[in-house]
């Protein structure tokens, strides 16, 4: 028997363990690379194709300052900002939702479900309908609403964990829906239409100043996220195990605050685009063999928003849906599928 045979017959534990440890890491990288390519493809399609097509050389010429009458305006003031805003809000929703779902250990614990997005909506609708505001004040109201509802849900739920928090969040969301309904009954037709459009979520009004503000927020939040993300691997083991490993529930709360802020700034920029925060994490996880990665969730979120915006814009000739209509139409069946699957696959703890 040669040495090689021996090694194959009984793999050295060290090597076996090293291989086992690296395999999921390699897979996650592969998935991230694949998703990046898909995002690039969707982004290119969104910017270059449609009712006004660009060639790649033209795209770069315009991007670097060349003036092509008509084309420059459509690209720089409509198509490109729309796609860029889609990437930013999609990634923010995806990462925010995945942090919620992972930390609270419940796929239903996404900001769309537990009232964070509805908190933003209620505050924004109030600002539009009752205060007659538009633009920046509405966005500020949305951020304040999202944060206020999160704090409320967290305080009521206490520290007893995910399941209770989801139930309370769903309850708060229902209450907020009725607040929004009430505000609509008091609104005049013009304001109501504006508020409705805001609530559906849309990137069609994208402009560079909005993108700059959103990008500024993300530039602050993302480094903090990178720093905190390492403890996500520990906090997701549950409060007791996490504390045993030296990670306190304060870290969990910090992660949730970050997720709320990511969601809030994205909602402020584009409205609560339905189900993106909820969908991105589980899709990324399914692609990644069951593991959630924030990079994967962010990429999926960006792909979903940019892709859905493309579909919304060109699916039916002459009709421009807001992107939220498309994500909602796909999100609701996905939710039902997820719940049905959870019922049959749940294991005894």
């Amino acid at each position, binding site marked *: 028997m040669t040495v090689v045979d021996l090694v194959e017959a009984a793999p050295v*534990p060290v090597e*076996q363990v090293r291989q086992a440890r690296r395999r999921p890491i390699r897979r996650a990288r592969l998935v991230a690379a694949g998703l990046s390519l898909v995002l690039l493809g969707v982004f290119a399609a969104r910017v270059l194709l449609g009712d006004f097509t660009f060639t790649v050389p033209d795209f770069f010429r315009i991007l670097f300052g060349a003036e092509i009458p008509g084309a420059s305006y459509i690209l720089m003031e409509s198509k490109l900002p729309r796609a860029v805003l889609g990437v930013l809000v999609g990634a923010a929703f995806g990462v925010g939702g995945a942090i919620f779902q992972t930390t609270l250990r419940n796929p239903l614990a996404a900001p769309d479900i537990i009232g964070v997005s509805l908190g933003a909506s209620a505050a924004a609708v109030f600002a539009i309908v009752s205060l007659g505001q538009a633009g920046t004040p509405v966005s500020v109201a949305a951020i304040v609403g999202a944060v206020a509802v999160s704090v409320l849900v967290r305080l009521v739920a206490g520290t007893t964990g995910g399941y209770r928090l989801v139930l309370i969040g769903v309850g708060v969301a229902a209450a907020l829906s009725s607040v929004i309904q009430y505000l609509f009954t008091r609104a005049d037709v013009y304001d109501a239409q504006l508020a409705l459009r805001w609530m559906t979520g849309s990137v069609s009004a994208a402009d560079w100043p909005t993108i700059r503000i959103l990008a500024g927020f993300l530039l602050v939040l993302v480094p903090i996220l990178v720093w905190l993300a390492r403890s996500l691997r*520990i906090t997701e083991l549950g409060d*007791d195990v996490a*504390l*045993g490993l030296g990670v306190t529930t304060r870290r969990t709360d910090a992660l949730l605050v970050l997720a709320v802020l990511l969601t809030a700034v994205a909602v402020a920029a584009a409205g609560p685009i339905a189900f993106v925060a909820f969908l991105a994490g589980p899709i990324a996880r399914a692609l990644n063999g069951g593991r959630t990665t924030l990079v994967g969730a962010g990429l999926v979120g960006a792909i979903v928003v940019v892709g859905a915006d493309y579909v919304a814009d060109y699916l039916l000739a002459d009709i421009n849906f807001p992107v939220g209509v498309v994500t909602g139409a796909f999100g609701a069946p996905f939710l039902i599928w997820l719940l049905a699957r959870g019922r049959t696959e749940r294991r005894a703890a």
Partner: protein
Amino acid sequence: MTVQPTISALEEEKVMDRPIEPGRLVADGVSLGYGDRPVVTDLTVRVPDHRVTVVVGPNACGKSTLLRGMARLLRPMSGAVLLDGKAVHQLSTKQVARTLGLLPQNPVAPEGVTVVDLVGRGRHPHQGAFRRWSADDEAAVVEALELTDTVDLADRLVDELSGGQRQRVWIAMALAQGTDLLLLDEPTTYLDVAHQVEMLDLLTDLNHTRGTTIVMVLHDLNLSARYADHLVAMKDGEVVAEGAPGSVVTEETVRAVFGLGNRVITDPVSHTPLVVPVGRHHGKEAR
């Protein structure tokens, strides 16, 4: 036929050759509870170093509460849990995590986590913000997997494992943490008797080979008597008896703690006390 030594003689011998030192982990006059309702009041328990300490008692006697207090999961209302003479709640939690490991009751792994990934997370207290995965980490994980006989499960998903395998993997995670003290809250719950014995053998190996101080809450009195060096019997938030199993597990103590008629005989295998419960239908003469 050999004459079996009596329990007391055996225990004396044990105590003689391994003197009990003042412990690194002490619950010093702690009151613990949930909300403002105390479950244990002014309790002092010294955990002997390098020994296996088992806390037993009826349901709701405060044994898990005491363990949670010692593991700093609960902040004492008064008194303090001391680790190396300092209050655990005043030490940095990461620093404590390098000395004191913890396995709570029924931990649940997140979906899609492999065994080696979970065990590797036990290294978290040893990793800084910038220092990531090191050769030390790798070696600790391999050793933990080898000790728990889970090397061949390394790339399996934790949710796919059987109850016994899963519990071994969680223990491996706690071992990878490389702490001198290890607290376990009912590590044998939901395991069948064979896996219970396997688990307790594993912990005893750990205690013998590494000298790890082990504190655990167990339900099975007879296994507790067999595996404990130091037994703490609690009732209504108070310590009723404490010491070597031979001196703690007596018919009077068991009756006082559990309110159960019983006979205590010598375990033919381990020569530790064996409690035989007496119910309403059997053994009328013993009641």
